[in-house]
């Protein structure tokens, strides 16, 4: 029984991890159709913000993680939207390559400042035991955060004016501008919010992972696969895809090795995309949330 319980929690944490990784990308890629290959590096920046805040300035971990990281990474996103991304809207492959250049650049900058060494954030809250097994308490907190974040996203998109403006602009920029909305500004703000969500995800995951300048690479592929497989309804899709992939990966990892878990995640993705070329939600939903 204990084994089953712990496995369930691990599967849930695997799902939450993917959903968390995908959240910012669901905004930037899912809604805006901007390929942000620097997604992983935005997450990496979130992790470094936590490290610097807690180690250098002695700021409370939760403040650094939940407030400072998203704000700072959001601002960084804003800057690069202004000097890079905004020239490339509508040019998907160019955006892909440019943001990938941005990712190399960010890796370079962070390596330059902090060196190519592994850092870590002390996992808070200790652990709890579950029969014969023990698990980090923080894992449960992370799962809870993910649920809260997604609930917040749905509420903002569905229930607020901001969400309405954003959704409207993404679907029909010219119509939106006729209604007095400035599409460039909406794009700018949306990108910054996406970056902030990404930084937040990186910060929340930092205590569970190591933090090195090149960590982004391992995030970006998983995040993209999750959001792409999710399909047209960016957030619903991302949650669904996270559910499938998180479960597959965790179960395989448990049975065999984590590497095989990754490989199976990928195989599942490729097969799912062969069946649903436009993603799981592509066939049944029009573009929405």
């Amino acid at each position, binding site marked *: 029984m204990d084994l089953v319980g712990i496995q369930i929690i691990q599967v849930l944490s695997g799902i939450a991890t993917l959903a968390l990784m995908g959240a910012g990308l669901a905004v930037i890629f899912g809604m805006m159709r901007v*390929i942000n290959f620097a997604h992983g590096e935005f997450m990496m920046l979130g992790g470094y913000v936590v490290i610097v805040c807690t180690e250098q300035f002695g700021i409370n971990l939760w403040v650094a993680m939940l407030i400072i990281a998203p704000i700072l990474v959001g601002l960084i996103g804003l800057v690069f939207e202004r000097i*890079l991304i905004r*020239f*490339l809207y*509508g*040019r*998907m*492959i*160019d955006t*892909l*390559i*440019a943001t*990938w*250049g*941005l*990712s*190399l*650049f*960010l*890796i*370079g*900058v962070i*390596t*330059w400042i902090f060196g*190519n060494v592994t850092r870590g954030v002390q996992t808070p809250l200790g652990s709890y035991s579950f029969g014969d097994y023990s698990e980090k308490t923080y894992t449960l907190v992370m799962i809870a955060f993910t649920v809260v974040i997604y609930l917040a996203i749905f509420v903002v998109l569905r229930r607020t004016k901001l969400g309405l403006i954003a959704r409207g602009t993404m679907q029909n920029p010219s119509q939106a501008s006729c209604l007095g909305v400035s599409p460039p500004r909406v794009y700018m703000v949306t990108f910054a919010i996406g970056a902030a969500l990404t930084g937040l995800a990186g910060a929340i995951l930092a205590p569970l992972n190591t933090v090195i300048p090149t960590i982004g*690479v*391992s995030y*970006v*592929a*998983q995040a*993209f*696969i999750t959001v*792409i497989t999710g399909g047209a309804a960016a957030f619903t899709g991302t949650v669904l895809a996270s559910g499938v992939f998180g479960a597959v990966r965790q179960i395989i990892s448990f049975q065999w*090795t984590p*590497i095989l878990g*990754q*490989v199976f995640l*990928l195989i599942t*993705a*490729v*097969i799912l*995309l*062969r069946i649903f*070329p436009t993603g799981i939600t592509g066939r049944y939903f029009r573009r929405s949330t």
Partner: protein
Amino acid sequence: MTGLLASGWRFDSNRHGTWAVAGVMVVLLFILPVLDDPLLLLQVRYYVSMIVLALSMAFIWGFGGIMCFGQSMFFGLGGYAYAISVGNIGESTAPFFLAMIIPAIFAAILGYFMFFGRLNDVYVAVITLAVTLALYYFINSTSGDEYSIGKARLMGFNGISSIRKFNWPGDPKALLSANHLFYFSMGLLIATYVGLKMLLGSTFGRVVVAVKENELRAELLGYDVRLYKLTVFVIGAAIAGLAGCLSINYKNFISPNAFHLSLAAQIIMWVLVGGVGTLLGPMIGCVVLLYVSFILGTGASGGGLNTYLIFGLIVMIFVLAIPQGIVPTLRDWREQGGRYRRAIAGAVLNLAEQLPAPGNVHVRAFGERLLGVLGPTAGDRTKG
């Protein structure tokens, strides 16, 4: 008007350029060994293997329109296929071919899912990226004894060392000398280049370019677009595998780093900087950027801090300001630039003889095309 018009007649326009470039390489083939500088030959062999890799990407991206983010996986697969099979067989003829066949088969399977699934460019980029990463992690984890194929162990993150070099076909004892290895590598490079040029000039090549230009129209004409893309992808993989096997013969060693993303990234950069839609451009881009990373003191794998920073900047600047890459941009300058640009471009280009006309004549208005060189706002290279 004549400049671009001439390039529009592209199917037939670039023979002179092809022979010029091939000629230069043939001259190098004969001159370099005469200089009697073993170190130089060794280095040239390294560059040659990388140029072959650059050609594979130039072909699938520039002409096939396939944005593969993991061309390094075929390079790595080719290398491992050679290393493992030569370790088992003890003779290099079959392994040499396996180094191309194994990546080709892998590409065929992967490509089937991608192209017959009709995934768009972005998804293809992401999936190739993910598969490359998975292979990287997988090979890294194979250091245990249980991971061996026949007599050869995979060795995981340690890599496989002291791999046998090429021998004369059928005679395992007669290993190729340094000079012969050079002739062989350089000869294969020339063959690859000329072969790709001939392929592009054939009906098949023309249809491939047409598919890149307008997939829907090609299909409405009755061409099976999926099959053409798959074939291009497979050919590219075989060439990358060849490059992998050549690079092993340079350093006798292969490690999971062959799959590493920094190599995949560099390949894209060679093509981007040299010019998407040409073969010569990426070859030049490859040599220049390898030299840059050599000067930065980090060697080929690009693990150091400055390479990331500087390469990142290069990529961003090129996408924003010189999206066509160097060679096509210079060609534009020569055709329609102001006095100075025309002079500069003319000088540079004439130096390199008559260049192959660029393949990516994605036509925009003339003025826009020129502006594309000057500023970031003009010129939309991709169609969606």
